[in-house]
């Protein structure tokens, strides 16, 4: 049995860890081909012809028949593929659907009622004027991207990639007191639209390149670590391999870590390549037992470090010496490029940071734009964003991906411009899967119909629906109940935990809870404990921060339902919303309208109105009206229209 796709994330370097080789018991040998340098396989023409390793060239823009459906260049690629399959885009979505979609997408929050009303009115006026003049949708997008909420939203995807948490993991899982500064740096950098090449480079070498961005280098040390290890050499080795593997996954979309014990089984990455890349990081200051990682570790080692291959990934088996060099397959022109000698002013990490973020690094740009696409369309163009190698999924639209990859440097590396391009295209603005259901009761459809639907999804013949993340669910609940605090930045918020969860913390772990005024802040500011995720986030698939995660899984479980129905948090939100909508009076229809607008950013359908008023009347007959309204609000936040964005 085998599955075509996995969305959660495993250490690219996990293979190495099967063989820590501490010299105790016999290990099953794995086959080795001898000296990893002299036996290194050359990169072949065929390797270089693979889609993600190919030199990045700007593809021709396809010509489409139905030019009326095209809003920008992105659409030309999508519509051309649709036309080849005899299909076309769905009609453009209505303003109410669109504003909920794009507001959640760009800010992680629902639009307010006032925002919806204003946008609907402006859209009507625009349509009445024959769709001439400035499109109110464009100003909506500009407003959202200018909001501080944008960086708070976009940061979470990046922190997933950065396997960011604020504790060490392992046995003691101690707090890292200053880790929040890196989180704040990411939010601020995104908000001020720091050019993406700098955004990336500073996370590898900010301390060397730009002192005011030194905190960005927190990326390198954001992963798990075991300061109390009795084997500090092993700790350093694992840490360096983890950093190298993460750099490979995040900045090249390649499972470089698979090459730490032996040559990569599928991709043209040799074991020597791995340790040459690692050599850029080998110069870090020595670790001290019981001392947590900090930026001080980024300082160069006082004594020169000789970089060697670790045979079978075992630090106790030093192999040939290697020089710091870039991945051969990612050098567009020649195979082996040894890094320029390290000058006094240029640290080794600066060299690799500059190389990684060059505008001819096809892997870097493809990996980046693949993820930006995923941010807006719920799934990436190439299905395995941290593995664009031979075992990964091929992109559904390779030319579009390459076009976007070449566009980013042309747009001065501005992510906000790329976001604008993607969320203003007709493909993004089309209807989702609504109103197209053929008649008949809910139930499995014939296979042919299912396959056709899958093809439509792949071709983007409609906008793909997505479920909110746990963080969005919490933020949305706070927002629609009018309790969301918009305070930004600073040390993380420690939310109260149920006693049965709190009791699992160790003696040495801090158990303090932030003042209640902090409890309603956005989820991005909630303290990220590696070994104990906040229960609601955990239930809704927050990754474990043990390895870089490029794509969350989307599970649907009964424990999610229990939490949303029964938790004190949900109950309190329902009561708060109920108190607000009770201001609409005692007319059930008015209550239903007010509550639905609040929870779903739209008015109720006829069916929802009928269900809601019937419920209120029935329940009010056996309980108080307040209780009926509270239960009604609880049902609204437990129903699909709340969890899903069309």
């Amino acid at each position: 049995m085998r599955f075509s796709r996995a969305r959660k994330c495993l250490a690219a370097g996990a293979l190495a860890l099967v063989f820590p080789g501490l010299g105790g018991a016999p290990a099953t040998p794995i086959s080795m081909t001898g000296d990893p340098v002299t036996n290194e396989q050359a990169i072949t023409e065929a390797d270089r012809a693979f889609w993600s390793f190919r030199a990045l060239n700007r593809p021709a823009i396809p010509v489409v028949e139905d030019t009326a459906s095209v809003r920008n260049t992105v659409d030309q690629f999508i519509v051309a593929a649709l036309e080849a399959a005899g299909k076309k885009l769905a009609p453009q979505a209505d303003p109410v659907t669109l504003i909920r979609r794009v507001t959640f997408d760009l800010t992680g929050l629902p639009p307010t009622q006032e925002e919806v009303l204003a946008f609907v009115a402006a859209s009507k006026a625009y349509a009445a004027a024959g769709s001439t003049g400035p499109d109110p949708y464009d100003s909506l997008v500009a407003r959202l991207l200018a909001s501080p909420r944008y960086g708070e939203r976009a940061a979470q995807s990046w922190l997933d990639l950065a396997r960011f948490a604020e504790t060490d993991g392992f046995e003691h899982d101690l707090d890292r007191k200053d880790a929040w500064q890196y989180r704040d740096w990411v939010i601020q950098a995104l908000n001020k639209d720091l050019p993406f090449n700098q955004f990336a480079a500073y996370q590898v070498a900010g301390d060397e390149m730009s002192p005011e961005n030194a905190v960005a280098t927190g990326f390198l040390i954001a992963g798990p670590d075991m300061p109390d290890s009795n084997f500090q050499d092993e700790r350093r080795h694992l840490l360096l391999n983890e950093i190298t593997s993460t750099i490979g996954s995040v900045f090249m979309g390649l499972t470089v870590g698979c090459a730490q014990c032996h040559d990569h089984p599928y991709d043209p990455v040799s074991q020597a390549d791995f340790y040459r890349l690692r050599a850029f990081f080998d110069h870090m200051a020595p670790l001290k037992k019981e001392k947590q990682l900090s930026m001080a570790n980024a300082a160069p080692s006082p004594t020169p470090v000789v970089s060697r291959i670790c045979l079978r990934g075992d630090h106790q088996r030093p192999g040939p010496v290697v020089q710091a060099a870039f991945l051969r397959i990612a050098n567009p022109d020649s195979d082996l490029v040894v890094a320029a000698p390290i000058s006094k002013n240029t640290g080794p990490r600066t060299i690799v940071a500059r190389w990684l973020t060059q505008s001819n690094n096809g892997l870097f740009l493809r990996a980046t734009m693949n993820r930006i696409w995923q941010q807006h369309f719920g799934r990436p163009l190439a299905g395995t964003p941290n593995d664009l190698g031979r075992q990964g999924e091929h992109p559904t639209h390779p030319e579009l991906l390459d076009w976007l990859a070449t566009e980013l440097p042309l747009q001065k590396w501005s992510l906000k411009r790329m976001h604008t391009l993607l969320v203003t295209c007709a493909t993004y603005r089309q209807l989702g899967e609504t109103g197209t259901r053929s008649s008949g009761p809910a139930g499995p459809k014939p296979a042919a119909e299912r396959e056709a639907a899958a093809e439509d999804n792949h071709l983007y013949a409609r906008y793909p629906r997505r479920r909110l993340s746990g963080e969005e669910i919490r933020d949305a609940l706070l927002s629609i109940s009018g309790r969301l605090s918009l305070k930004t930045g600073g040390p993380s918020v420690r939310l109260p935990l149920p006693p049965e969860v709190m009791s699992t913390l160790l003696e040495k772990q801090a158990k303090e809870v932030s003042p209640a005024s902090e409890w309603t802040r956005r989820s991005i500011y909630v303290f990220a404990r590696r070994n104990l995720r906040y229960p609601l986030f955990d239930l809704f698939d927050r990754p474990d921060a043990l390895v870089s995660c490029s794509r969350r899984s989307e599970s649907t479980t009964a424990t999610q339902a229990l939490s949303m129905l029964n938790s004190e948090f949900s109950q309190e939100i329902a009561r708060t919303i109920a108190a607000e909508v009770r201001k609409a009076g005692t007319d059930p229809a008015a209550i239903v309208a007010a509550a639905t607008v609040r929870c779903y950013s739209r008015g109720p359908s006829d069916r929802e109105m009928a269900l809601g008023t019937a419920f209120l009347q029935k329940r009010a007959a056996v309980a108080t009206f307040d209780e009926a309204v509270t239960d009604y609000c609880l049902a609204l936040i437990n129903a699909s229209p709340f969890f899903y964005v069309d």
Partner: protein
Amino acid sequence: MGLAGVAIAHLLGQEKAAATTISRGLHFPAKAKRVIWLFMHGGPSHVDLWDPKPALLKYAGKPIPDSLAKFDTRREVRKNPLLPAAKKFHKMGESGLDMSEFLPEMGELADELCVIRSCHGDSVNHPQSVYQMNTGATLAGKPSMGSWVSYGLGSENENMPSFVVMPDPGGGLKGGPPAWGSGFLPASYQGTTLRPGASPVLNLLPPSGMSNERQRATLDLVKDLNHAHLSERNEDYQLMARLETYELAFRMQSAAPEVVDLKGETEATKELYGLDDSRTREFGTRCLLARRMIERGVRFVQLYSGNTNGWDAHDDVLSNHSRLCKATDKPVAGLLRDLKSRGLLEDTLVIWGGEFGRMPMSEKGKGRDHNPWGYSTVLAGAGVKHGHIHGSTDDFGMRADVDPVHVSDLHATILHLMGIDHERLTFRFNGLDQRLTGVRGHVVNGILT
């Protein structure tokens, strides 16, 4: 079959999930339909409990011979004086299995046990070894065995999770919840933690004062709203699954408290598990819950004994193990007896063991340091030989010597007993068909019936 398919199959009927996840049925007939894993957290001492070493008495106070002294230790105890077992062993039962005076109740059941004396792992540290024993890898982030089994076999009862974990109420497992995490498998396969008491699962019960009838009314409205939402959209597994989860949640609300409600158990049964004694009541309760869960179709139950320190007897083996053996011996024996009398031991595998064993030499005079290079794990029940010893350590109990059983071999064997070929239970991730056993693992045929 994509992930969405797995999730829906998991929700819409666990037996259906089993049929679809392992497309050609089980790889071979399963001898063990379920597993109860009694995890002795901290590292119980094999040389004091399961693996008697006369040489330790003979050379007591002397260092281990140089030829055996090449190994990593955590606290540089290599040259410390050898320390004899803290209590005597006796040959018990028809099998004549060596049983320690630490475990008198289990001693009575010597003929039921299969002691693997040649286990070994790869790390001297607790969290790495806890991870390895649970997930096959020394770093956190891989799926645990219970997750792999749920993924492969589903559950027998759609109202209960298929993989349940009952942590020690003292908390503080070294390594934390990643020990029962699902790693790269879908989150629905992670272990569900369950506690004794009125609310065994987080948020299981409605707030106090909310009647069943009131909650049912709310749930009916959720259902109607979801149907209305679905009827305007194309068929979607996720939307259908969400409909189903609310019904499953409602059923769990009555099913789960029933599982943990011991009112229906007889006094004799409670006594069997030591519920009548304050020293054994806590672990006995969880052992009894384990039986109740497997009776109701939970496939994989894991219990942890030992808080942060647990069986980690650095200072004094006698005092540490006396306390923990007292707390667990009778409950474990009671569980085995109860399973046997109910005919459940025939197709239930019980595992007793820690993340590693302990060193033959002393630490701080009366304690022992960690030893992953050789230690014992005990099996009982479905498909394994009874009153049997497999493999051995060297004369001092220092490392696995004859017929060594690596952690991955143990994993391969447990999966085998459950009818799963460890090389064919895979999940494509990061370009590789990942397995519980990584690139190693051999079934230990010598212990199979």
